[in-house]
């Protein structure tokens, strides 16, 4: 942290020094450069002045005045030698007459030989006759840039010693500017370069400078590299036109000095910053950090162990020691309040644990945080098994989603919901009624849930039983109604059949009474007797019909209690009843042995069996060796009892009809046709079934089933 702070400080200082110091150093440098170039310009103008005064000396001289006029050779010999050129430090001289015509030109070369200057130079100089001094007051001094080189030029009118005219011509003196510049360069020990503005082989920096320099901006400063800076100045010609660009190169001493100053300054600050940081750290650690860490460690330790009797070290008398003291006091108070809390927790726990209600707390994710003993006992789990389990494991899968939805909908305004839930165990389904409360710490998310459940399995079971009973009752009522309706239909049919059957003898009686009267009146004794017999027969038959109908109607109502008897006994009893009839016929009767026990109204079944045997005897007809067989077929668990005869058999079409009331197989049959109907009724009242298996000429088998009794032969 401290290192970063120090580094930041240095960065800030660096940027400040960079912007403030360096720019001021730059200014300083530039000002120095401008000063230098101004000095050079000054030196050059003093050179020009010097040349001008030399020229004035020569031009305002009677000898020269005379020479222009006569062109005497003595003047040339005496004055225009190499010594005087060297002395005057000029490179060429032009003597012109008043019309600008050349009188004499002289120049000196490198080897100090006096000769004519190059023609090009002369013609270029005089090209626009600018330099001609046509009056006494004309004079031109300055710099001229020519293809042959740059020169300092002085042009004066040729006058007398006293400076009196008229001017006889013009004297022009010129000096190479480059040598002058060289001299200056040597003098100030800085490289100076001058270039004519129209020079063709200029370097790129000059071209750039040329375009930047203007009337107003006479100088331009440009840094060529970190080491050097260049300053350009525009020099004006004789008539004020821009003619020369001067370049002065200077080492950037000042700037570099500034840079190194900043570097050392920053280095110093960095070093001192680091040193201070280290010192502060050491001091901080000694006086504060290690003690704070110790304090934190011991507080942490107390938190971890939960031992509130431990204390933090509190040596010294500064703020930290006071903090430690405060912590210790707080620990004491905490211990006290925890003691109280423990007591109340114990009380609360005792209440919760002794409840018969199932209590459970769980987190919003469902993880159980607390259960009471009743809960564990109820679900048959140990507390260990329940740790980290979800409350939802007690919720049945069928209703789980609805319940979860309800729980999620709880809010601080409506924090309670209740629901019933089933839980499958090996012993059956357990039902609970849960009341669930969400505990909130803010207004949005529940912190914990608390569920209190009651076992309602018994109630649920009772409810279910009640419901089943109700449903059963309903179906039974329906069944019974259907049964009653069916019985009603049967009853109607019965009444119809009976009334029809009873009307039949009435028709006979009424009819024959009429005939009887007729026959009696005629005195036909024979017919009267048969008429009377018919009437008596009809009355007897009617009585028989009435009594049998009554008997039939009572079968279902008057019942003796069921007896557990072997069917053998029933067969024996039936045969005994009609022993006379059997003896009267030649029928052989075979009875099976060890027949199953039946649980029946003994009297009725004997009656039914008797009826069946009688029927068989009745219809056995003229069969040879008539035989009746009584027995059972099928397994002993589901026996079908039968009475079989080897008589004439019954047409299959009539087999269902034989049980109908008053049905007779043919007109000669004895009886009223109630017998088989009665048998059927008796069997059906017992819950059995009866049917006929027969083929014409192959005998008849009447089959029936009966409720079975318990066999007592358990040897």
């Amino acid at each position: 942290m401290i290192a970063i702070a120090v580094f930041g400080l240095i960065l800030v200082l660096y940027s400040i020094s960079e912007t403030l110091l360096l720019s001021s150093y730059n200014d300083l440098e530039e000002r120095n450069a401008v000063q230098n170039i101004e000095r050079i310009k000054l030196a050059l103008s003093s050179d020009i002045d010097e040349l001008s005064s030399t020229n004035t000396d020569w031009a305002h001289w009677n000898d020269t005045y005379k020479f222009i006029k006569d062109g005497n050779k003595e003047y040339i010999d005496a004055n225009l030698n190499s010594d005087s050129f060297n002395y005057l430090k000029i490179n060429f001289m032009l003597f012109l007459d008043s019309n600008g015509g050349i009188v004499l030109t002289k120049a000196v070369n490198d080897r100090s030989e006096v000769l004519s200057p190059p023609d090009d130079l002369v013609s270029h100089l005089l090209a626009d006759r600018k330099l001609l001094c046509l009056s006494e007051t004309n004079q031109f001094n300055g710099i001229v840039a020519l293809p042959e080189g740059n020169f300092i030029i002085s042009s004066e009118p040729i006058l007398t010693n006293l400076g009196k005219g008229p001017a006889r011509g013009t004297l022009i003196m010129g000096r190479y500017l480059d040598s002058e510049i060289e001299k200056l360069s040597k003098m100030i020990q800085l490289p100076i370069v001058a270039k004519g503005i129209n020079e063709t082989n200029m370097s790129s920096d000059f071209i750039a400078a040329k375009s930047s320099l203007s009337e107003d901006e006479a100088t331009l400063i440009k840094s060529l590299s970190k080491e050097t800076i260049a300053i350009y100045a525009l020099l004006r010609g004789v008539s004020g036109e821009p003619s020369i660009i001067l370049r002065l190169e200077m080492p950037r001493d000042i700037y570099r000095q500034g840079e190194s100053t900043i570097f050392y300054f920053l280095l110093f600050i960095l070093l001192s910053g680091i040193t201070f940081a280290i010192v502060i750290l050491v001091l901080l650690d000694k006086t504060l950090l290690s003690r704070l860490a110790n304090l934190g460690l011991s507080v942490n330790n107390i938190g971890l162990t939960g031992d509130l009797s431990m204390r933090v070290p509190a040596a010294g008398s500064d703020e930290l020691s006071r903090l430690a003291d405060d912590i210790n006091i707080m620990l004491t108070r905490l211990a006290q309040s925890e003691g109280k809390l423990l007591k109340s927790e114990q009380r609360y726990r005792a209440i919760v644990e002794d409840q018969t209600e199932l209590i459970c707390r769980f987190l919003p994710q469902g993880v159980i945080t607390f259960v009471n003993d009743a809960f564990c006992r109820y679900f048959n789990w140990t507390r260990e098994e329940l740790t980290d389990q979800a409350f939802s494991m007690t919720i049945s899968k069928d209703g789980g989603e609805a319940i979860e939805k309800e729980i999620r909908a709880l809010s601080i305004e409506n924090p309670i919901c209740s629901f019933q839930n089933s839980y499958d165990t090996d012993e059956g389904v357990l039902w609970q009624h849960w009341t669930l409360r969400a505990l909130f710490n803010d207004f949005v998310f529940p912190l914990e849930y608390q569920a209190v459940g009651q076992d309602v399995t018994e109630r649920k079971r009772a409810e279910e039983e009640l419901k089943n009973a109700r449903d059963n009752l309903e179906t039974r009522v329906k069944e019974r109604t259907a049964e009653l309706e069916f019985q009603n239909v049967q009853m109607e049919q019965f009444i119809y059949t009976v009334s029809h059957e009873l009307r039949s003898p009435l028709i006979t009686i009424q009819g024959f009474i009429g005939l009887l009267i007729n026959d009696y009146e005629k005195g036909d004794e024979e017919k009267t007797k048969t008429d009377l017999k018919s009437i008596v027969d009809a009355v007897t038959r009617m009585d028989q019909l009435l009594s049998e109908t009554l008997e039939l109607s009572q079968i279902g109502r008057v019942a003796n209690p069921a007896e557990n008897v072997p069917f053998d006994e029933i067969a024996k009893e039936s045969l005994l009843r009609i022993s006379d009839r059997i003896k009267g016929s030649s029928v052989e009767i075979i009875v099976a042995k060890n027949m199953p026990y039946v649980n029946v109204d003994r009297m009725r079944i004997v009656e039914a069996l008797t009826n069946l045997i009688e029927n068989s005897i009745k219809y056995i007809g003229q069969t040879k060796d008539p035989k009746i067989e009584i027995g059972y077929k099928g397994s002993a668990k589901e026996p079908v009892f039968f009475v079989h005869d080897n008589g004439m058999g019954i047409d299959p079409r009539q087999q269902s009809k034989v049980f109908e009331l008053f049905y007779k197989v043919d007109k000669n049959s004895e009886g009223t046709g109630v017998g088989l109907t009665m048998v059927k009724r008796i069997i059906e009242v017992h819950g059995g079934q009866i049917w006929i298996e027969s083929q014409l000429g192959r005998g008849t088998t009447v089959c029936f089933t009966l409720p079975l009794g318990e066999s007592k032969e358990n040897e």
Partner: protein
Amino acid sequence: MNNQSATILLVEDDETHAKLIIRSFESMRIEKIFWVCDGEEAMDYLLHREAFADRKKSPRPDLILLDLKIPKLDGHEVLRRIKNLDELKAIPVVVLTTSHNERDLRKAYQNHANSYLVKPLGIDQFFRLTQHLSLHWLEWNWRLQGDSILDQANSSFC
């Protein structure tokens, strides 16, 4: 007058009822009455089978009187068979039974019974019934045969 050409088949299981009907017809001198006791016998008679193979013993009846409650084949079945046989269905069949049962009535007419009559109480009523039967069914039948028996029949009641 003598209506000997009229032949009646009586299907009736109750002997006394048969006697009453036969005696009623006899009083009108209609004596060619063939009496059978059950449905099977009736079909045997009509189709000249079994005991009735001799056609002389089973002449084609002009009228069939049919009781419904008879053994073996019941009256409805006999009626259905008669009306389904081309050679027999022209014979008028009058159901003569003890009951007023609607169901029987409807079923009989569905099976194309020509009439449905209930046995009356009293011999006079029987006489009236047979008179009515012979008038309505036998005369009508004769007329179809082209004979002028109507007058004869009428005069027989004088």
